[in-house]
């Protein structure tokens, strides 16, 4: 029921969300990561997302299954974009439907935290000044 998607082009989020509209679901929590205009004070023109795709898919799916086991949710979907995204585009979307809001919030937060910690995806920022840089941030352990 829960699934992790990687997409090379923008996805119709409304469609993914409607799939989570299950009879027992009373609360829905979602998180989106957007490409910001600045990072650490530098003007960003876009971000290039690269993934080690087969492992990213299995690890992303494992995270959703862990979330389903740990929280009283109905279903969860996560979508991560790959490729070059302009400022304002949605890089990641997570949607969680649950009978009650506690589980929806808890699972949604768990999923984004674990994606950032474990899924082999890397972002290379492109700056207005012309350079690029790999964003080194999260602990992988």
């Amino acid at each position: 029921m829960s699934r992790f998607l990687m997409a090379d082009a923008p996805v119709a989020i409304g469609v993914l969300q409607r799939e989570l509209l299950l009879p027992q679901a009373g609360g829905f929590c979602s998180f989106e990561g957007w490409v910001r205009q600045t990072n650490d004070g530098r003007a960003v023109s876009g971000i290039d997302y690269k993934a080690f795709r087969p492992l990213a898919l299995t690890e992303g799916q494992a995270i959703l299954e862990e979330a389903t086991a740990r929280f009283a949710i109905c279903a969860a979907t996560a979508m991560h974009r790959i490729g070059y995204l302009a400022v304002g585009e949605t890089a990641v979307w997570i949607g969680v439907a649950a009978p009650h809001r506690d589980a929806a919030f808890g699972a949604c937060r768990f999923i984004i935290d674990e994606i950032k910690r474990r899924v082999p995806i890397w972002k290379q920022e492109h700056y207005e000044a012309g350079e690029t840089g790999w964003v080194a941030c999260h602990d992988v352990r």
Partner: protein
Amino acid sequence: MRRIELEYFAQLHDAAGCAAERRETEADTAAALYDELCAIHGFSLSPACMRVAVNAAFCPWDQPLRDGDHVVFIPPVSGG
């Protein structure tokens, strides 16, 4: 000698100057292979901040390598 398929991402891709390569190696573990590649490509990332995947599954650094294995060293991830 083992024949190993390598794929490089992020900083390792930049340092190696290629996305993938096939190498013959005497290295018998992922850790030994990474040491060998550091000397060849000048990788500066410490294994302590990375993980390694063999045949698209995370594994311990001391996992023995077999002929034909596909190996990816995973720099600190930054998705989301």
